[in-house]
């Protein structure tokens, strides 16, 4: 089944690549703009365009791109002339680190807060948690980021405001300090989403017959919660895990540019502003790949966690 799903992903990736390629080409402006100086005439500009391969019809350009991409050659950046694959490899660790940390934090926090909320339904903790998670979902992350920077960096001078490392300092602690704020910002929405899912699924589990049976047979509230309810309530998290990946990718774009975090997001934004289409294509394809993998992963995990689902398929 997994193999079948993987094969199904291929036409989807190709469709995504066609649409992105078309959109990039339809957008006004092109990378040649970066090279134009007043001394240049139209012939010189044409020759630059020609050498960049921008003069052929769109479908030819696309096929050329697809052919080399299938061979693993993502081409050269039109702006800095460096291999695209190399640039992505350089940036990948920073983004994956940030995404990974946020994923782990939001899962742990979300599950804990969700469970505690559900078992204290409509009490103070639950009310605070519910309010906070609504806030977390609705607060724009760039605003939240600016507030954090204002308070923690400018006013309290606790944390550095930008980058991944202090110039000239190479300690792990320095790296951690730099990553605290971006991680918090990136985890905020996800934590709130996970909290809400866990809370509602726990509450619905608590109403199930088996819970009443367990209580009747003398199990304590705690036992019921952690032995039986938790296992069932946690199932939706697996789906959220897959679903939250795309959000993390797009969240990383914003977070990285605000905190000057040297990851893919920052690279992506720069490539868009400079019409660097080989780079835009590579990053788009990479994000779509994560998205598809995320969905696949959540299906597989769900199948493992709840064998009934596998049977139904």
């Amino acid at each position, binding site marked *: 089944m997994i193999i079948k799903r993987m094969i199904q992903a291929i036409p989807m990736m190709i469709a995504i690549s066609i649409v992105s390629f078309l959109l990039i080409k339809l*957008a*006004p*402006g092109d990378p040649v703009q*970066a*090279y134009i*100086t*007043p*001394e*240049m*005439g*139209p012939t*010189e500009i044409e*020759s630059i365009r020609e050498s960049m391969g921008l003069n052929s019809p769109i479908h030819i350009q696309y096929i050329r791109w697809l052919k080399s991409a299938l061979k693993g050659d993502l081409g*050269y950046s039109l*702006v*800095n*002339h460096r291999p695209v694959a190399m*640039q992505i490899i*350089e*940036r990948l660790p*920073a983004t994956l680190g940030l995404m990974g940390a946020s994923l782990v934090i939001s899962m742990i926090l979300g599950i*804990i807060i969700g469970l*505690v909320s559900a*078992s*204290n339904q409509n009490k103070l*903790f639950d009310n605070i948690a519910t309010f906070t998670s609504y806030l977390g979902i609705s607060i724009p992350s760039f605003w939240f980021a*600016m507030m954090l*920077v204002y308070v923690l*960096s*400018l006013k309290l*001078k*606790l*944390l*550095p*405001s*930008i*980058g*991944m*490392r*202090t*110039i*000239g*300092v190479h300690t792990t*602690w320095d790296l951690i*300090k730099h990553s*605290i704020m971006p991680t918090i910002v990136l985890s905020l929405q996800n934590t709130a989403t996970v909290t809400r899912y866990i809370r509602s699924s726990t509450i619905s589990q608590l109403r199930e017959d088996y819970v009443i049976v367990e209580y009747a047979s003398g199990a304590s*509230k*705690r036992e019921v*919660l952690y032995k039986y309810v938790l296992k069932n309530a946690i199932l939706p998290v697996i789906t959220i895990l897959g679903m939250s990946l795309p959000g993390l990718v797009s969240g990383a774009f914003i977070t990285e*540019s*605000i*905190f*000057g*975090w*040297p990851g893919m997001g*920052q*690279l992506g*934004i*720069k490539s868009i502003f400079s*019409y660097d289409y080989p780079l835009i294509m590579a990053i788009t394809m990479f994000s779509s790949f994560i998205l598809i993998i995320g969905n696949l992963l959540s299906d597989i995990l769900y199948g493992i966690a709840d064998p009934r689902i596998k049977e139904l398929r």
Partner: protein
Amino acid sequence: MSNKKWLVLILALVMLISTACGNKNVEEPASVDIPTDAGQESEAPQKVDGGIFIFGIGSDPNVMNPLYAGDRVTMTINNAIFAPLYVIDEEGTQFFLAESITPSEDYLTYTLKLKSGLKWHDGEDLTAADVIFTLNSITDEKQKANSRGSFVVAGKPVEAKKIDDLTVEFILPEVSVPFMGSLGGIRPIPQHIFEGEEDLAKSTKNLEPIGSGPFKFKEMKSGEKVELVRFDEYFDGKPNLESLVFRVIADANASNTALLNGELSAKYITTAEVDKFNEDENFNVVLFKEGMLNNMVFRLTNKDLQNEDVRKAIAYGINREEIITGVYKSSEYAEEAYSVFVPNTQFHTSDVEKYEYNVEKAKELLENAGVENLKLRLAYINSSKENEGFGLIMQQQLKEIGVELELLPMERGAFYDKLLDASNTDFDLAFNGYVMGVEPNGYKPLFRTADFNNFMGYANEKLDAAWEEGVVETDETKRAEIYQTIQKQLMDDMVVYPIAYPNSIVAVNKKYGGIEEAKLVPISMFRDLSKLYIME
């Protein structure tokens, strides 16, 4: 009761994290650059050897090779790594790698002498051969160097001939006075590194550039920083600072915070931020001329605008002073512009028709032209606060004379696509800005009939001839006359309405000195980084 335990646990965790941050920070400040306490105020700060200067850059540099640098970031970094031959500015000629430049009597041959004992960052000698190699690479069509156009005169490339190890002769096919300025701007690249490279732009050698400037390349971390260290054998003496770091910060708000937080040493700021930094005792706010003209262009594709009187009426209907105070606060931050040349361009003159605000005259001109209820579309880049301000103020002002402006803010790429196409009729007026340098010939492409860069669609054969005369006129006085006539004529024809020559504002952390000697200049911020120093 288990839930209470959870709460306690979470609270404890939060406290642990916050105290951990707090404690650590006592021992180790969040940034190496946070200004030290005011406790030492009694002692006057002393110039010290060493230290770091941190620039904020919006993105990674492109190709770290002066042949291809076209963007602000790369040019700023290049300025530290690669020294130019010489620089001609409004104060005269400042020599860097070159010792002298002498034109022959017929202005067809220029003799360049290099200083002796010049070194590349890898210890090799910098000689005439490197200069020749650089020029030949620029003129080589295959290499697609940015400035090729400046070294091709009358369709033929300028030739370079080696006289001895320190002397090069440049032979021009035809007289071209602007050549001397262009030549000075060459930043040589080392022949021993690049010889035999097929495609200089894609060469991996650009990843670890070897130059001859005050600072040499140390490392680059994509998306994070470019780090340079001082070059002890710099011809003008060992630089004061130990290193220069260019930190990548894409977001403007984030870089402001970083500057306030001491994580950056200097940064361009806007007039809206001036007060904040002036009040902050940790910063010096410095102004300098950016050499830029912000202007409004008339598109002659519009039938009504083809009538000179209509264009003049609009010019009289605009109150420049009000725009300057409205957008830039005061004339301290932007000078009122009258000529299409900026003040630091050679032969600039303000002795032109100034179009002082005059509603009556404007109305009269419109009436004479027989134009009523004129509606015009004005385009500009939507992300520019400056342009938005210009637009809104002009819209109000021109209403007085019965001209209605429709504002068309556009995305940057779309705007330039349409602006550069003189036949596009999506708008009638547009805001534009340019930096053309000291050499007046640089303005020629903007105004020459049917030139690709002439996006007004302006045609004036007389001026075309004058521009060509300016290129070959070697007599300074006569040359001045030519360019002054050109400026006057352009104002009389009113195809470009000059608005303001804005000043750049830079906030520099007070612990840095030598700002005057390093000289603030457009684009790269400082001209000679070896002169900056730190005070403790």
